[in-house]
């Protein structure tokens, strides 16, 4: 009997370390079939081993569970069985049990059992610890996963930018109060999926998924300053920033139930989709050291629990979504078919509001809401409607015609009310000053956004010859935006409507047997209704009279947000693939886009480009070398006004400055696999890759001729140091067959990330803005060596 060595069916090297190591478990790498029966019978595998990672790094271990230095267990299995694998049995019953990454926080388990064609049950469990950072420091005390944080009673005052007590000069007691918190979110996902076939025509499916998320992510917070509620001057610095642990204590339950009917000419599916999101918290509370002070308004040495303003903010509200779905298709003939669907969804959010009382620095409670709340919760309702219909015809040889229609609507019928509250961004009070406390009210009216999109599409795909194809596509898109029943009747959107036409042409040519060429061009033109740009449109309607800065969403005259203005869009792309020999494949493709926006101010234009070059040389069975190079570049140019607010004030050309945003990406990789060594017992796999991504920002301020870009008191023009991430990765894997059913896998991986990002500058001790609590967050560079050894047994 001939011994056959099965080809390895996965590019292990392109996966991250965890999945790569586990691939040996889950995939039939160890299948060494002796005969036909072996090939037809499922190969079961069990893997056990260990892995060592050399460095603590939340970034390296962001998703792979290897965030800490040390040893990890490697464990996995894939076992299948059932009479359905035996042709001699009249049973279609098959089952499967699988597990992967069992030794890390990225473990997964799954199982299935079913009589194929009649019923099936799938079970799944999946974990993922999303590691965010291990360098975050804070003086805040409390359960890291909780929603209430306090400061040490003796933390003292931080009110000024510099000097003793300022955030750039913390006292020894304050500095010692900082502790490091490891931030991560654990996700545990369980699922059940069942299907049952009542008859060849009728079947049902039910899926349930439960996602549990716990932990915390970092969030910026602005502190309420003191407010005047008739108790005298209550001091505090408004907008004092604390980066806090935002609790993530969520559950999401998704349910999908469907009934399918299939007939000779058509099929239809009716279903229900439900998504229930629950947040255990409705608010986040914290004491702000920047908002402390004494009631007298002169002391800066307040010490004690009552020195801090207790702030609150909301968290993600619990909500539900129920959706009824209907989809189906009908074949008028073998050449003419119609397909379509309809959905109606009801999305509700009525979680109780976050507390509106804050505890002031003098220990008294004050309500941020002047006049109270119009309701204790939102009673928010959004109805979504979807419809689509597509007709295809292939009556004419070599010609496929298609015409379609789509409609999507988000209709928000949430009540609109007035919410009057003390504004966060009011006057800052510092000890020793005589400034008045915050008495400014923000008069807000919530504006529930609604929108609809209607699309028409026509496609013609024609085969010019056996070697040439051409596709022509035309799209028309109509968008409308509005708000239902806004209190006071103010306009809520800057652009209430837009129309867009898009035409695409694609050409494919088989130049010769081994060479395929394709090219395409797309042009789109969007025409936006900008009539509301001069209205009190934008963020939130105000009860105040429309004037001054309320115009144009607070933006300058002529400024337009790029998603809502006239736009021309061009896209060109081309590629060629050449199978040079039976062993050598080569490919090159590229694309270029250019968008032009019709706006006096705002994004003016954008362009992007990309090139991919690939080559694969398969020089023997189970042996190959692959290489790739990818380059991507994108640039956006925008113009902004420095002054000229109001409907009647045009921004003078001499007050316009420009921003240029540029992303550049380069990556190269080399993968090699060599099988059949040592009499077919050894396989070697190597992978080397390098990637460099940079993001650059450049600001030109032509009007500031008297203040050069190098003016260190401003630095409002010139170039920002690029944000760069350079990743070098090297990995070797050796798989050695120690006997017919056993394989040893040895893996070594080196990965180095050089990350430069000015994001962290302003969070360092001694370098913060005067109102920002330092966090000491560090750039996430790392150098990690990983060695793993595992034994894989197949049977």
């Amino acid at each position, binding site marked *: 009997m001939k011994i056959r060595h099965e080809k390895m069916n996965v590019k292990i090297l392109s996966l991250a370390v965890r999945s790569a190591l586990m691939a040996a478990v889950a995939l039939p790498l160890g299948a060494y079939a002796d005969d036909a029966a072996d090939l037809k019978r499922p190969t079961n595998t069990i893997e056990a081993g260990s892995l060592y990672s050399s460095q603590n790094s939340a970034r390296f271990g962001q998703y792979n569970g290897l965030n800490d230095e040390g040893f990890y267990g490697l464990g996995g299995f894939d076992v299948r069985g059932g009479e359905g694998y035996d042709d001699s049995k009249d049973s279609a019953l098959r089952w499967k049990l699988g597990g992967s990454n069992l030794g890390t926080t990225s473990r997964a388990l799954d199982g299935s059992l079913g009589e194929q064609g009649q019923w099936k049950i799938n079970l799944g469990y999946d974990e993922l610890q999303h590691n965010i950072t291990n360098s975050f420091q804070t003086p805040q005390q409390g359960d890291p996963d909780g929603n209430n944080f306090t400061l040490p009673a003796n933390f003292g005052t931080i009110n000024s930018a510099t000097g003793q007590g300022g955030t750039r000069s913390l006292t020894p007691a304050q500095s010692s109060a900082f502790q490091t918190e490891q931030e991560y979110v654990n996700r545990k996902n369980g699922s059940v999926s069942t299907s049952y076939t009542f008859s060849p025509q009728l079947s049902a499916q039910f899926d349930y998924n439960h996602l549990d998320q716990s932990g915390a992510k970092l969030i910026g917070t602005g502190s309420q300053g003191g407010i005047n509620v008739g108790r005298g001057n209550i001091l505090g610095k408004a907008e004092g920033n604390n980066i806090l642990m935002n609790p993530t204590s969520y559950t999401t339950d998704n349910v999908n139930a469907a009934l399918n009917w299939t007939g000779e000419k058509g099929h239809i599916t009716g279903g229900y989709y439900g998504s229930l999101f629950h947040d255990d918290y409705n608010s986040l509370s914290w004491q702000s050291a920047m908002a402390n002070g004494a009631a007298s308004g002169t002391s800066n040495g307040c010490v004690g629990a009552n020195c801090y303003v207790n702030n609150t903010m909301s968290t993600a509200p619990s909500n539900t979504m129920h959706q009824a779905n209907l989809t189906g298709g009908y074949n008028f003939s073998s050449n003419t078919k119609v397909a379509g669907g309809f959905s109606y969804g009801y999305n509700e959010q009525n979680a109780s509001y976050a507390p509106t009382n804050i505890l002031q620095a003098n220990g008294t409670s004050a309500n941020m*809401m002047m006049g109270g709340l119009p309701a204790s919760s939102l009673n928010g309702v959004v109805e979504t409607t979807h419809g689509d219909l597509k007709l295809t015809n292939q009556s004419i040889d070599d010609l496929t015609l298609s015409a379609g229609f789509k409609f999507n609507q988000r209709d928000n019928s949430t009540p609109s009310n007035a919410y009057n509250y003390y504004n966060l961004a009011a006057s800052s009070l510092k000890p020793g000053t005589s400034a008045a406390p915050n008495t400014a009210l923000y008069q807000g009216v919530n504006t529930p956004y609604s929108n609809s999109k209607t699309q028409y599409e026509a496609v013609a795909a024609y085969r010019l010859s056996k070697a040439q194809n051409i596709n022509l596509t035309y799209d028309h898109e109509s968008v409308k935006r509005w708000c239902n029943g806004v209190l006071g009747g103010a306009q809520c959107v800057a652009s209430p409507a837009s129309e867009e036409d898009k035409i695409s042409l694609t050409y494919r040519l088989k130049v010769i047997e081994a060479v395929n060429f394709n090219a395409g061009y797309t042009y789109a033109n969007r025409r936006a209704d900008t009539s509301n740009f001069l209205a009190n449109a934008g963020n939130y309607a105000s009860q105040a009279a429309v004037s001054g800065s309320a115009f144009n969403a607070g933006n300058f005259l002529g400024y337009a*947000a790029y998603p809502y203005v006239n736009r021309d869009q061009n896209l060109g792309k081309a590629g060629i693939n050449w199978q040079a020999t039976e062993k050598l494949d080569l490919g090159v493709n590229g694309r270029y886009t250019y968008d032009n926006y019709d706006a006096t101010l705002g994004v003016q234009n954008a362009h992007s480009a990309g090139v991919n070059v690939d080559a694969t040389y398969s020089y023997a069975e189970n042996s190959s070398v692959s290489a790739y190079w990818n380059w991507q570049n994108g640039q956006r140019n925008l113009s902004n006004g420095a002054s000229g607010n109001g409907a009647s004030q045009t921004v003078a050309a001499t007050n316009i400055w420009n921003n240029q945003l540029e992303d550049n990406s380069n990556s190269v990789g080399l993968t090699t696999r060599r099988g059949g060594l040592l009499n077919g017992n050894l396989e070697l796999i190597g992978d080397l890759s390098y990637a460099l991504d940079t993001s650059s920002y450049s600001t030109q301020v032509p009007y500031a001729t008297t203040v050069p870009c190098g003016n260190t008191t401003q630095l409002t023009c010139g170039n920002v140091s690029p944000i760069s991430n350079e990743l070098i990765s090297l990995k070797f894997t050796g798989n050695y067959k120690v006997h017919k059913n056993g394989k040893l896998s040895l893996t070594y991986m080196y990965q180095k990330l050089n990350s430069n990002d000015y994001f962290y500058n302003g969070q360092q001790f001694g370098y913060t803005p005067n109102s920002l609590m330092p966090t000491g967050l560090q750039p996430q560079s790392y150098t990690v060596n990983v060695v793993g050894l595992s034994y894989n047994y197949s049977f």
Partner: protein
Amino acid sequence: MSVYAENTAAPVKAPTAKPSDSLDKDSACTKCHDENESKPILAIAQTAHGNKADSRSPSCQSCHGESEKHLSSKNVAPDVIFGAKKGVFTPNGVKDQNTACLTCHEKDQKRTHWQGGAHQVADVACTSCHETHAAHDKVRDKRTQPDVCFTCHKDQRAQVRKFSHHPIAEGKVACSDCHNPHGSAGPKLLVKNTVTETCYTCHAEKRGPYLWEHQPVTEDCTTCHTPHGSNITPLLKSRPPFMCDECHDGPHASKNPVAGAAEGIQGGLTGNPANPSSSYTGRACTNCHSMVHGSNDPAGALLQR
């Protein structure tokens, strides 16, 4: 001009009704196509197609055609040859290949929108992604599926490895979690009807509706985010305040040019004690306006609480 030959055989027959019939028909092929084939032909028995007790399971002829001439002479191609590259025989046209598959697989919810969809129009064959004879069909495994998609979508191959990314390369998120390659009613072959609906499948905390909404969030998450990967966490198109400036230039600090001021003191900024500004450094705008996805705080109209 091309001279390549193409098999244009008639569509193949539907699967046989009895398992024994299917096995009998298979035996006509497996006499020659046995365990010695370089490709694992017989491993199809491990797949759903090889579960012969299921009366719907196909025989070899269900997909490859009766191939009577091939049975008479191995030098004549079977009626339907799958694949893209020429081997011993030249593959059939994509339409014929796909017809063989769609005979059974067209009439279900997941493939309702195949006809006229992006992949169908681009002449993508089922076998461009699926390996029907292999025991392990890479595209149906979350850990290996992305490599199959990256065969064509090479820009995305680079993007998923960027500094900020979904756990795609780590095998926790698959392309098909968001996209239905067989066609959909949504944009970009998304599994749901809209971008937002698709994202809410996992990020339901962003769904609201919120008391204070941020308009682009209610329309399209990709206004700010690039889901396949970014150099800026979390999957942002660019870094605040520069990103925010693309839609805001009036409200307080967004009217001011920033440039190197974003780098703070370490970037060379000196001067008055108010520098560096919390509006420009670190999280910049989102130091205070952190509730960019919406706020449910009655005192949060400006997305600060």
